[in-house]
């Protein structure tokens, strides 16, 4: 079963059991610390669902502290992690439908992207991605696993372009890689 971190529970456990809203940087940092403590107890390579379903409001400061800084620390950028992390960590964000405005804002600011799960379980990509990355991601989402050549053929991309895009998506922890195959994160979750 895919591990799940309930952000609302982390908020109540690490800041105050009276709060339902994720506001202020101070709160954001405390919640991110709580999430990182939970992540530390998980395995070396894992997909984790970060669930915002029980959160009332997410402001820009908390979106930055919790989502953007978490991604940066766990290496979900094209340039690798801010903090050294040995593990390959993948996130799927759940319950973020009402919070997409601040999330998009901070993702754009940092040049990041996330995979989020809509209420019916379908996954979406949001944030800063190139056209080739989006095309490759949309293709890989529809197949359980595929090689670069297979994705390139379906997406209509030149193999070298497709390989570059898939490699970047993997570096950004937006798809999984298993040997020569690429897999959508959602399929594992």
């Amino acid at each position: 079963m895919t591990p799940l971190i309930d952000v609302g529970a982390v908020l109540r456990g690490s800041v105050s059991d009276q709060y339902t809203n994720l506001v202020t940087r101070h709160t954001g940092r405390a919640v991110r610390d709580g999430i990182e403590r939970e992540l530390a107890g998980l395995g070396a390579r894992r997909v984790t669902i970060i669930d915002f379903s029980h959160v009332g409001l997410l402001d820009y400061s908390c979106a930055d502290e919790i989502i953007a800084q978490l991604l940066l620390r766990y290496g979900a950028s094209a340039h690798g992690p801010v903090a050294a992390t040995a593990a390959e960590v993948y996130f799927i964000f759940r319950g973020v439908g009402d919070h997409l405005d601040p999330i998009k804002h901070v993702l754009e600011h940092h040049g990041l992207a996330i995979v989020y799960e809509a209420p019916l379980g379908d996954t979406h990509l949001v944030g800063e991605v190139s056209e080739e990355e989006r095309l490759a991601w949309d293709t890989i989402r529809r197949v359980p696993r595929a090689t670069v050549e297979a994705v390139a053929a379906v997406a209509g991309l030149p193999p070298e372009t497709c390989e570059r895009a898939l490699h970047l998506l993997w570096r950004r922890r937006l798809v999984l890689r298993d040997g020569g195959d690429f897999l959508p994160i959602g399929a594992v979750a």
Partner: protein
Amino acid sequence: MTAIINVPPSLDDEKFELVLDQVARVPADERLLLDARHAKWSSPYGLTALLALAQSRAEKPAFTGPEDENTASYWSRAAFYRHAEEVFELHGFVPRPKPAGDSDVLLEITPVTRSDDVHAVVERIQDKAKQILTTSLHLDPKATMGFAMTLSEACQNIVEHAGQGGWVAVQKYLWRKRLGRNVVVIAVCDAGLGFRRSLESSQGRRIAERWDDATALQEAVVNGTSRFREAGRGQGLKGVRRYVQRWGGRLSIRSGTARITQGEGDLVAEVPLEKHLAPFPGAQVQIVIPEHVEK
């Protein structure tokens, strides 16, 4: 010596400049008496700025409140006197404390010092904001969440940058003269560091040759520069600007001797950046969200 400062009958962000012009002529260590006997009305900005003005003085100023009972009663319901008695020496008619109980006061004047205060403000306002924004301002329900975010970010400006406490108030009223429509106004005022000194406190920051309050405001509000060097800082005000733009509102931020204003639609700013205003320490923020009307 005590210098008498006349508070105009109608006290909004523009008229408050008349108060500051008078204060500017008084030495910093001279005592003030703010005479609001003839005041008939004040916006949330006027009330919170009066408190911040008191906070900025070395010696506790004296204050004489409105003689008009309705006005005094309204200021009491907005919790002005509750906080005024801490920062002013009160004279004249002081109404008995009254609970808000007023549907137009979304948030009575509330002190903001710590992160917990911002949580409390946001928790308190959410339900009422939803009701007012959708029924009185006819905004899409989607506007509610952004409104609370905007309020949170404006209050955090105090927590993160002021170096001391400030006040926030939120109210709905009919902006008869300027718009002829209902508006919801957020006012957040402090007498702390202000934008210029906050940015100057950043270690290793190179100060531009032309460096003043206006430049500091532009840096922070337009370019998203923060005294904190971590990437990702300075996004709060950018978010506030986006929200104001989305809902055709107006954002004005005064700090030191300058004010920057972003206005949309009917609230477009005639002078987006004002310089050489009378000095006022700290930062004073006003956000106006107007009623939606079909064109």
